[in-house]
């Protein structure tokens, strides 16, 4: 029986970032969500390089502790850093200050570069902490944690339903796509392709709406009247308290570094 309850928290393994079991998994989901939110807040509002770099260091430590699959994590980080690269290229030119060099009469400022680098460090730190603390839990756990943190019911339902039906809808998409291929449809850049793909997405939308209506009907048939019952209890253990106190001390240190 208890196995069933526990399972609802560890299921949806497909949704969580692949990783080996670590002590981070034993932390209460709420603690993980709140800690990462606070961390993001503190790091993003830091003005000093030292604070941001220290944050990044902690992020690396957490990634190590949560035993993330390095290859997969790296791939995700690179996706964001590519975006950051454009920032590094653009920001020096748009920020006024002491020029570093000039291209076609446009001056690149040192200040702009340091701004861009600071933003990059912050972004990476927050992302890595999110990966190690939040992405290592399954989507339904996250949903339950948010519900326990008094996030509005509607948002939590939205998320839980999305997780459940993403698979169903993507299957539907694949089914239609295969049906198109079976009738010798090849994508090209022509009117026919645009029209067909338009139909495909239109149909997907209609089917999703219809399915949503049917699900609503099915829930009504079982006496649903707007309230969801969460099937789990979350307990704060000793590990949670230790982790939270260390984490909070660290955050205070970060805040302090900004005022040095």
């Amino acid at each position: 029986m208890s196995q069933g309850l526990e399972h609802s928290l560890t299921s949806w393994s497909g949704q969580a970032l692949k990783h080996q079991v670590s002590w981070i998994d034993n932390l209460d989901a709420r603690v993980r969500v709140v800690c990462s939110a606070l961390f993001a807040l503190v790091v993003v509002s830091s003005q000093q390089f030292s604070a941001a770099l220290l944050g990044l260091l902690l992020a690396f430590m957490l990634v190590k502790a949560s035993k993330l699959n390095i290859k997969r994590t790296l791939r995700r980080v690179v996706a964001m850093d590519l975006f950051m690269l454009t920032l590094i290229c653009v920001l020096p030119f748009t920020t006024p200050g002491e020029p570093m060099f000039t291209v076609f009469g446009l001056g690149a400022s040192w200040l702009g570069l340091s701004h861009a680098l600071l933003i990059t460090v912050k972004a990476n730190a927050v992302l890595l902490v999110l990966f190690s603390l939040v992405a290592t839990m399954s989507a339904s756990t996250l949903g339950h944690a948010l519900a326990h943190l008094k996030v509005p019911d509607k948002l939590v339902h939205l998320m839980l339903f999305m997780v459940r039906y993403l698979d169903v809808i993507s299957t539907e998409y694949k089914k239609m796509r295969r049906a198109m291929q079976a009738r010798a449809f090849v994508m090209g850049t022509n009117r026919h392709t645009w029209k067909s793909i338009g139909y495909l997405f239109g149909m997907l939308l209609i089917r999703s709406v219809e399915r949503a209506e049917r699900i609503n009907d099915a829930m009504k048939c079982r006496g649903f009247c707007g309230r969801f019952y969460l099937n789990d209890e979350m307990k704060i253990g000793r590990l949670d308290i230790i982790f939270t106190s260390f984490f909070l001390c660290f955050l205070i240190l970060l805040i302090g570094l900004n005022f040095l």
Partner: protein
Amino acid sequence: MTYSNKPLIKIDNLNYAYPRRGAVLKDINFELHAGDRVVINGDNGAGKTTLLHLIVGLKKAKKGDILGFGECCTTEKQFNKLRAKVGLLFQDPDDQLFCPTVLEDVMFGPLNLGFNKQQAIKMSIETLKSLGMQGFESRITHQLSGGEKRMITLASVLVMAPEVLILDEPTNALDEKAKLRLLHVLQALPQAMVIISHDKAFAKQLATRECELKEGCLTERLIEAVAVA
């Protein structure tokens, strides 16, 4: 089953029409008594599913009354009460299973009926056991096979202890083995049933009454009495 003259569900002059399709159901009259297992036949698009949805109030009738257990149902609140006693099994199991795990899904009904969590878990596990689905509690719903999904949806309806079961093409996309299993389970249930099925052999083995829905009219068809054990 004790026979009583009072019908569980009574439909009086029911009319329904879709906006651009004209009348689908015209003056339907129908009674369901305890112990009845009624199979409704009809072509695709004849309005069978519509009729079932009207009975539990998922669609609102244009004209006519639905009496559930002697009470006329018109408002959502009245239908809500009716739905607790009339379990509807949907055509597509994926519409019904929306929780991550089987146990959570089966528990959903009892929790809505006001049972507490411990009771709901106990009831769910008992129901799963009675359907031979013990050990499925912690399975993930979208990873089940078609036959398993069907049994779980049945459990999620039965756990609410309905007096009437309404089955919308229960054998849809089931293989022979799963079909046979479902048939045995349904035959053993005491509830009155309304069944839509295109599977003639399956319907024949269950039915005590047979109706035909054609051009919006529901007519009773007499069938030779089957030896009732």
